[in-house]
């Protein structure tokens, strides 16, 4: 186990370097540059000495691309992601500030959607082809089909018009004022969860049904084990294995995916940060964000594999 973990973690490094390379190349291929934007900004601020060359030198863009890449990579190795082009901040500080609300939102979405989808999915599987099963499945299909940005817009605007209620737009740290913080997050979290849980519910149902057809479940039934115990002890424990993979995947999707919710509910998250950075061509910031995202995804993949091993002794990790 320990050996396997070490191997996996060592193997993360080449992939991370490759991610760096891919992102770096993609960023340098973007048309339009940060240089012009910054030059314009400086000149507008009354700095007449600024020229294209001086700005380039300031940002470190006058060196050849290969040098730039290795300089950046060496910085990454030392834990220094560089400075933002447009804010007077280091990239790591900027990301560290913005990632907290994003993680909170993702975490809430994950908890709520699992709380909805796993019990209901198991319920559906236990009562297969009953009326409640059909109703829940139809509702989950409908939920899957609603575009999140549409329902988020509707939910944002109508309560405001009808009851003069809107979630607070100013972000407060959770530990400063938990109630106010949750007030802001609860609506987007529920929306994200509701649109996410449809697929998860169907998956949980399918997987549970599959395990309920397994031989060991039949054996348990034949022995006279009560239904509840069969469901929770024999079927559910095995059904949860593929669900772990699914949850891991949705964590990965959530890391970069709630841009829409963040921008609509004015949550100062990392999604909004990436979008502005991308529009500004803030190379180090975008590179840093992508790197952080990819790192999170990779770590989650490793965790999922390890958990799999933990829950299923049949699996041998090479």
């Amino acid at each position, binding site marked *: 186990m320990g050996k396997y973990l070490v191997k996996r973690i060592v193997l993360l490094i080449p992939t991370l370097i490759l991610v760096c390379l891919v992102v770096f190349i993609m960023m340098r291929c973007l048309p339009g540059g940060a240089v012009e934007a910054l030059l314009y900004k400086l000149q507008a601020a009354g700095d007449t000495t600024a020229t294209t060359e001086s700005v380039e030198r300031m940002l470190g863009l006058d060196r050849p691309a290969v040098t730039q890449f290795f300089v950046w990579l060496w910085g990454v190795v030392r834990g220094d992601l560089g400075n933002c082009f447009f804010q007077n901040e280091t990239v790591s500080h900027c990301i560290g500030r913005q990632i907290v609300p994003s993680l909170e939102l993702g975490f809430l979405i994950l908890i709520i959607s699992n709380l909805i989808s796993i019990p209901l999915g198991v319920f559906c599987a236990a009562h297969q082809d009953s009326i409640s099963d059909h109703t829940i499945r139809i509702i989950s*299909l409908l939920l899957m089909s609603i*575009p999140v*940005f549409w329902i988020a817009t509707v939910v944002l605007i109508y309560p405001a018009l009808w009851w003069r209620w809107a979630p607070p737009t100013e972000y407060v740290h959770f530990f400063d004022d938990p109630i106010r913080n949750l007030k802001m997050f609860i609506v987007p979290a529920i929306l994200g969860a509701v649109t996410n849980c449809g697929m998860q519910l169907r998956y949980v149902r399918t997987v549970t049904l599959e395990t309920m057809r397994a031989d060991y479940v039949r054996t348990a039934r034949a022995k006279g084990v009560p239904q509840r115990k069969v469901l929770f002890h024999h079927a559910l424990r095995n059904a949860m294995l593929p669900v772990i993979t699914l949850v891991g995947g949705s964590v990965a999707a959530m890391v970069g995916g709630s841009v829409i919710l963040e921008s609509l509910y004015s949550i100062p998250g990392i999604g909004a940060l*990436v979008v502005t950075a991308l529009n500004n061509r803030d190379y180090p910031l975008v590179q840093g964000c992508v790197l952080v*995202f*990819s790192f999170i995804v990779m770590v989650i993949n490793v965790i999922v594999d390890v958990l799999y091993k933990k829950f299923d002794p049949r699996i041998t990790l090479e």
Partner: protein
Amino acid sequence: MTKIKDFCRAKPSAALGAFVILILVFVAIFADVLAPFKMELGTLPSDILFKLKKPYWALSELDKTMEQANGTIYWLGTDNLGRDVLSYLIYGARTSVILCLGVSVLTTFIAVVIGTLSAVLGGWFDLIVQRIVDAFSCIPGMLLSMILMSMVGNGIWQLIFVMSLPGGIGQSRLIRSSVIAVKDAGYCRTSDVLGGGNLWKMLRHVVPNIMPIIIVTAAGGLGGTVMMEASMYGVKVGTPSWGYMITNQGRANMYSAPQLCMFPGICIAVMVLAANLFGDGLRDYLDPKLQGGVGTYDTKKIKKIADKYRKEFEESCRVA
């Protein structure tokens, strides 16, 4: 033909989904005929005097008669440029259908090319390609799409490319693993022995044999594609688009003209629903792992089949 009939009987909800998609394709093809207001030079006729009109049924009697007298009936009202919403939605179906078809085809194509090449050529090529695939699949798809989007610019063909690449790279792993299962089969080795090249082997032996898997992955991703098309909302593709309508007009005029947000939303929901139903059904129908398994566990059916076989058996006994 019998296969289609069989499919409809086995998966009625999937058939319904396919029917809705066919209707949408029909609307997309004949948009010029169906739309009450025709597009001219790539834009719908707009009349600022008639902006933000209510849908026809919500009008007062006087307004209804006035619209009839003018000969311009806006069944679903107008947007803030005075364009007919119904026509906009009909032309929007064209964009959605083109995007969905394009993205599905291109995604599958990318996945099959990368997966098959990687698996068949093997060796160093496989190792390098797989590491690149690993790197790409670590970057969240939405983010990758946004970066690519600013790389290639706006437009419908660019959007198709941008939406296909992350999905294609992700799916290529699945294709690769299924190719690996096939490529050492007898017929592939025979082809090698007879001097067939790698390209011949891929096109003639490998790809036809993993066709069900290809179709299943393509169908399974259909709903997600429609949803993603609608969610890439900040993007103006140059043609009427449902997602663009919601974010650019619906949100601003939500209270005065709710139709601008509601109708495109419903259109998207219906299309995603249909695509999901069809995709799921087709996957269940074709996927050998699920054959006779989940969802088709019908005791009546099994009894029927058992009865049929018993009868046949009894008859054969009688004959003997």
